[in-house]
């Protein structure tokens, strides 16, 4: 194929996206089925939980009436499909605890988690990409060793340990930042850093490895021998080729942050998705947990899809490899 696969045209991409979307249907069915099934096999009865939460002593008649009212006495598959149908229409049920609509709860919680996740990914990329390139270029030198050592340390610290450390130093001792979240910009600084520090540690190593791999390629030797400036080689060629690794890292880290922010939200009392779900779990508030799990998976699946499409634009070979003809 002469002239490049890049010119395949918009229709091919559209067809690829459509096919990917079609392939998502069984996955989404599976995800919702597992999520709903988990509640079904759970040892605690949601109706008793609900009645206890509202302070009613659960007598058998009340429990039965309630179960009938909620449709929980119907066969499992009927329940599942009813739930799925309502879910698709945006009705995720009501919280067992305070009767609020789960959709509304999720909608107020999502922005906080997204701010945290996007902020920490941006900080991570801002630090790990330059430092990764720097260490790769200075491979074997003292600065490489120091940064690698620090990134190894960062990689071995769980984010909740980092956040406790930051909280102790910068909020309790130095009082530079608020201890609890107030929703202001300042109160997002520590949680974002707490998430970004371990990720930066991890990704410096991976960016370094990706850049080192590129630096070993013949085209770099060729450019050097032709007298192309190092800076140009690095930022024009190596960066572009290492971009795929970096984008993969970004999408992976957003994936691990969906849910991974829970501990941080708990520590800083930041009312995001993780905070919401941990309180829902203590109370066994199943509709909230289900809404959380399904929504997180949907977001994750969409991010993966976008990542794959972006590969297609960054590297035409990937597109042909994925079977776009």
């Amino acid at each position, binding site marked *: 194929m002469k002239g490049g696969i890049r010119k395949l045209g918009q229709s091919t991409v559209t067809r690829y996206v459509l096919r990917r979307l079609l392939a998502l249907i069984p996955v989404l069915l599976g995800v919702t089925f597992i999520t709903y099934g988990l509640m079904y096999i759970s040892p605690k009865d949601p109706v008793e939980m609900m009645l206890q939460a509202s302070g009613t002593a659960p007598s058998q008649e009340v429990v039965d009436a309630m179960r009938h009212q909620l449709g929980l006495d119907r066969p499992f598959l009927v329940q599942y499909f009813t739930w799925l149908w309502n879910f698709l229409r945006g009705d995720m049920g009501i919280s067992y605890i305070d009767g609020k609509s789960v959709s509304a709860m999720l909608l107020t919680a999502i922005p906080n988690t997204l701010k945290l996740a996007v902020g920490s990914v941006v900080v991570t990329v801002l630090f790990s990409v330059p430092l990764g390139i720097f260490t790769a270029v200075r491979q074997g030198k003292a600065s490489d060793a120091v940064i690698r050592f620090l990134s190894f340390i960062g990689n071995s610290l769980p984010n909740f340990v980092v956040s*406790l450390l930051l909280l102790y130093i910068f909020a309790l001792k130095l009082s530079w930042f608020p201890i609890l979240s107030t929703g202001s910009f300042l109160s997002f600084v520590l949680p974002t850093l707490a998430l970004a520090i371990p990720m930066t540690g991890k990704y410096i190593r991976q960016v370094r490895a990706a850049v080192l791999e590129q630096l070993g390629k013949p085209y770099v030797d060729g450019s050097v021998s032709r007298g192309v400036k190092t800076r140009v080689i690095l930022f024009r060629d190596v960066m572009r080729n290492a971009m795929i690794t970096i984008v993969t890292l970004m999408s992976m880290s957003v994936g691990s942050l969906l849910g991974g922010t829970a501990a941080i939200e708990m520590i800083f009392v930041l009312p995001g998705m993780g905070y919401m779900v941990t309180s829902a779990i203590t109370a066994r508030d199943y509709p909230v947990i289900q809404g959380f799990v399904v929504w997180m998976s949907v977001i994750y699946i969409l991010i993966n899809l976008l990542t794959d499409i972006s590969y297609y634009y960054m590297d035409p070979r990937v597109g042909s490899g994925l079977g776009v003809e």
Partner: protein
Amino acid sequence: METVSASAKKKMYFYLAVFLLLCVFSLFAVRLTPHDPELANLMAAKKAPGSEYLMGTDWLGRCIWSRVLAGAKSSIFASLVIVVLSMLIGCTLGVVSGYAGGRVDEVIMRLVDIFMAFPGIVLSIAVAGMLGPRLKNGVLALAATSWTQYARLIRSYVLSIRQENYVKAARLNGQSPLSILFRHVFPNAIRPVVVTGTLHLSGAMLSISGLSFLGLSSTSAEWGSMLSDGRSLMQQCPWMVLYPSIAIFLVTILFNLLGDSVRDVLDPSGKNKAINN
């Protein structure tokens, strides 16, 4: 074939030995505690580290040092169990999938796709949340989500090994599928699985302590739940947070060093990437 230096091997054996010692130690550590790790003693509450209480006491007067020792089992040993469990599930399904092919393969791989659609720790949070806060449930919840990487890994190896002439010859000789699996396929596919497993250890450790931190795993002495207990008292008793943090940090470092050294020896070309868990 790249050669592996003797020093890399020595390093691996050293970390492996430390790791095994630590695992054995974690099983017996609970017997070495100077105080009962669960016994509340309000007379001795919130004591700073001293000669009687090496790492101080928490708000109930429980000895932190004893609790750190007792927590070793639920942190170190539990991560080992998570890794072994997901390895077993993943390898079995992956081998079956790759070797059987056809519709079986299709079904298993769709199952893998479904489980991989749950991001990071989300499914574990749900599983642990539904089953109730127990260490056993936390371990199950994490194994239930991390087996997929082993299944995919070993399936791809099985698929390529199947095409080798010696496997075809064995099949023509009339060897049973099981004996082909054990004599030809496993010995070839085991290296990448071991590498992935050791790299998985630190992730498993961080996840299980993360789950306990959220109150979704062990409720007795565990490093993650100790941190969670201590965080509201951090200003008065920083030692409640400090020592469990150090324990988590040191063990994770050891696991990372072990993972890196095993990868350097068994997979010098570096095909295995660290797991994002």
